[in-house]
């Protein structure tokens, strides 16, 4: 897919990372270590700008997935969002994180909504999924705001720095997303 760029309002832009973003990405992660560590295994393995550069390069090299995108808030990098695609089941999975400073503005929900539009309208996926650790109340609230259905709990399905967490499985189907969007716009 081509490089993404979208102004999603309220001073927030979502766009694909370039290698030039590696220092800003590292600095943001480094400034949010305590905030990220409980949920994100990559907090621990991100030790230098070389690591964020390698991550961005791997995203740029990926033939299908759209994993490497930043969320810019008032001009500065504030978080990340990625879409991985399972071509075998024609489904996608969204993942995201946000710096503590920007919580509570609905930023992640709006970024996800834009990605779901791409997933269902442009990529013609049948289903979108989200996995959230059972204790990650904020992430689970995003799934609820997106109209996703809680479908199960994969026990110990998420690895984090100090063990494994139960993974709540959320899903939404193409027709459900369209109906929800139609209701919202009406």
């Amino acid at each position, binding site marked *: 897919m081509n490089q993404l760029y979208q102004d999603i309002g309220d001073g927030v832009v979502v766009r694909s990372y370039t290698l030039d973003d590696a220092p800003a990405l590292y600095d943001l992660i480094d400034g949010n270590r305590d905030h990220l560590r409980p949920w994100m295994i990559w907090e621990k393995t991100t030790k230098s700008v070389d690591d964020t550069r390698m991550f961005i390069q791997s995203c740029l090299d990926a033939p299908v997935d759209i994993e490497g995108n930043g969320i810019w808030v008032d001009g500065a990098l504030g978080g990340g969002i990625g879409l991985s695609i399972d071509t075998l*089941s024609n489904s996608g999975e969204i993942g995201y994180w946000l710096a503590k400073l920007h919580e509570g503005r609905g930023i992640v929900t709006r970024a996800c909504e834009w990605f779901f539009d791409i997933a269902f309208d442009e990529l013609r996926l049948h*289903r979108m999924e989200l996995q959230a650790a059972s204790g990650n109340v904020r992430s689970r609230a995003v799934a609820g705001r997106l109209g996703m259905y809680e479908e199960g*709990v*994969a*026990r110990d*399905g998420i690895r984090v720095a100090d063990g494994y967490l139960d993974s709540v*499985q959320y*899903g939404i189907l193409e027709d459900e997303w369209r109906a929800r969007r139609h209701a919202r716009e009406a």
Partner: protein
Amino acid sequence: MRPDLHIELGGGAVLRPYTPADADALFGVIDANRVRLARWFHWVDDATDAASQTAYIESRVVDGRSLDGNGIWIGDDLAGGCDLMITGSDDVGELGFWLDEAFVGRGLVTRAAQALMARGYEREGLHRIQLRAGVENLRSRAVAKRLGMREEGVLRGAGKVGGGLYADLVIYGQVVDEWRKTV
């Protein structure tokens, strides 16, 4: 795929990876079970000739972590397939399997899955192994129970099956501590 994988399953059955020379046998068994398998698996639609199976076999990545691309063999007869896919950074493996109708009911898939699970936990450091089976695929779901897995939810429309259709999948899971109690 692991080219060196070779597991005796008892009763003369062996689990071993396909080689390109197996493409004719693989296509023959899929073709003979086409209608039955298409209820659960989209890849049946892609199995159009032996060459399609050569392409599948050659697409297995030899240096990956996954224990995939395996056939269940009884002598020269291919009875089915059983894989353990390992992707991502969560120490999670996912089982998948299918069987020729003529070999149903002998416990072949259960034994093949048990062998792959033991390798996954012991040698690959997996913490969890899961299986997703069509809600109506009662045989697969019975295997999950025999393997000691727990039903954890229903993923709606998560399985692409033959004919461009989608099926709800029951997700089953087991963590390594539970497995240790069963062996």
